[in-house]
């Protein structure tokens, strides 16, 4: 303000159905850095925002799941490109949100960008890995292909505001699901800014919907929602009681549930995490992601098809 210019603060908003609404409830809450310094006011979403987000995600599901895997890969790569262009902004936001130094935050943002590229490559390859032609004793082709589960509610990790978020979100949409994401409650700013990246990446509106607010308040209606097909409970990792309740509610319509700690059980690392509240989700987000998050929200469709007449020669097809 030394040059007499007024500060222009950013109004953080939700990302729902390709638009940037405020919370329907009109509520906001204060977000601070780990030391308690005020960063911004963000919308405190209500269950109605969650419902609207599910409607948007359901609407987007047909086109997104029907898009070619190649096209989805291009769009995910485009997200990486857009994120790269806003690298400085995200470094600043991640550093503030997680109390990291600039260089550490830069490493996190780079890893998040690379994570998009990683999953962009997987969109048209996961089918070969988990699908295939099954040998059967009869004159049939028997083919299994993975299909997206549907609308997936994603509780983003509480500790890792960008890399963790990308690590749970990208695999869900890479396979053709649409997502309703509940951002980290205490560090939602990188997630809300990611909405702006997604909006400019050719990603159809509604494929990803990002809500900020209290995780428990938003997770409950999502877990019991009859039009949500899967839920990733990563963000409830620090609250075993909540995770249990959500899983019970999710059973009502047989949702796919991804439990908080699906990563390999590593006692020495967990002990280290316990001493470091940043990593309560029990996952090392910088590790090789593998494919288990891609396969968590896939359904296998198997088709039997007659091989037809083999001809007089009796040869194969």
């Amino acid at each position, binding site marked *: 303000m030394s040059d007499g210019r007024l500060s222009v603060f950013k109004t953080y908003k939700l990302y729902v159905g390709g638009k940037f609404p405020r919370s329907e409830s009109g509520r906001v809450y204060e977000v601070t850095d780990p030391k308690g310094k005020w960063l911004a006011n963000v919308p405190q979403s209500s269950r109605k925002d969650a419902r609207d987000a*599910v409607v948007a995600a*359901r609407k987007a599901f047909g086109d997104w799941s029907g898009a070619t895997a190649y096209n989805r890969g291009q769009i995910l790569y485009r997200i990486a490109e857009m994120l790269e262009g806003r690298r400085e902004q995200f470094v600043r936001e991640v550093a503030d949100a997680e109390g990291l130094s600039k260089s550490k935050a830069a490493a996190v943002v780079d890893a998040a960008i690379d994570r998009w590229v990683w999953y962009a490559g997987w969109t048209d390859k996961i089918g070969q890995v988990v699908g295939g032609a099954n040998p059967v004793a009869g004159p049939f082709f028997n083919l299994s292909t993975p299909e997206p589960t549907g609308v997936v509610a994603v509780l983003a990790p509480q500790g890792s505001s960008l890399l963790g978020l990308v690590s749970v979100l990208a695999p869900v949409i890479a396979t053709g699901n649409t997502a309703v994401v509940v951002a980290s409650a205490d560090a939602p700013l990188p997630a809300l800014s990611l909405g702006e990246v997604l909006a400019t990446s050719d990603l159809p509106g509604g494929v990803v919907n990002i809500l900020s607010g209290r995780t428990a308040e938003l997770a409950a*209606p999502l877990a*019991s929602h*009859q*039009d949500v097909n899967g839920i990733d409970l990563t963000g409830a990792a620090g609250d075993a009681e909540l995770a249990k309740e959500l899983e019970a509610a999710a059973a009502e319509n047989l949702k796919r549930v991804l439990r908080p700690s699906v990563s390999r059980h590593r006692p020495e690392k967990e002990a280290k995490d316990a001493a470091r509240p940043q990593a309560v989700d029990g996952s090392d987000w910088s590790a090789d992601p593998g494919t288990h998050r891609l396969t968590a929200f896939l359904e296998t469709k198997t088709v039997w098809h007659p091989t037809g007449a083999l001809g007089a020669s009796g040869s194969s097809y």
Partner: protein
Amino acid sequence: MPTTAPPLADATASDSALRRFLHGLPGVDTVGLEARAAALGTRSIKTTAKAYAIDLAISMIDLTTLEGADTPGKVRALAAKAVNPDPLDRTTPRTAAVCVYPDMAATAVAALAGSGVKVASVATAFPAGRAAPAVKLADVRDAVAAGADEIDMVIDRGAFLSGRYLKVYEEIVAVKAECGQARLKVIFETGELSTYDNIRRASWLGMLAGADFIKTSTGKVATNATPANTLLMLEAVRDFREQTGVQVGVKPAGGIRTTKDAIKFLVLVNETAGEDWLDNHWFRFGASSLLNDLLMQRQKLSTGRYSGPDYVTVD
């Protein structure tokens, strides 16, 4: 009363008398009308009031299928849905009626026999209304003969817009005569009438001619029922009853798809025409997809969980 009521008996004596009467109706304050409709749409209706409103709205639906592709099977499926909208919850009220084309009326009558759900049939060369008067009347006779309880006719918008009010009036009178016991709903197609003044004139014209219901639109044009034009028609039926003692129903149709929209209309009814109209004998919704949204909201209220399109029928 400070002002004397318009001499309604003489209003329809001749074309010029009718024009004098209709053009003598007070002009509509467009800004005021839309502002009032919008203001009434901001009421917050929650919990038990919402549950009541949802059940009331379901009981007011004319469940409609008016497609070229209608088949007897589709009409029967719709009839089954009208009688039992939510098979998972038998406390769900029935809809008021099923609304079909005249050639499907007999199918609907057979499917709904004894259920208490009425059969409404559109007629008079719906939706354009561009046919010879004799053809229109034959259309009505067919529907009545097939057993329709209610006839939804369209007015001749061409005649109305060119100022031949008496022609429109006489056509409604003739159709009413063909209806016998069936109640007559008169569709104005408000989206084609251009101005609110015209909607007010059409409302009075329809009521003078003996309409049992006045209905906004066919659902086949770009602009269908809006809160503002429905509010205007509710004011007309209220004023008409004040002057003549005759109560006329209102039916907004087309474009009402969500529970929120439906509840806004019910607020308009209550605040404008009054409680007497909060009954499916006097107020209807012409709708098809609205019912599914009402059912999903109803399920939400009874179970506490948000429902989804997998739990209602695909029509």
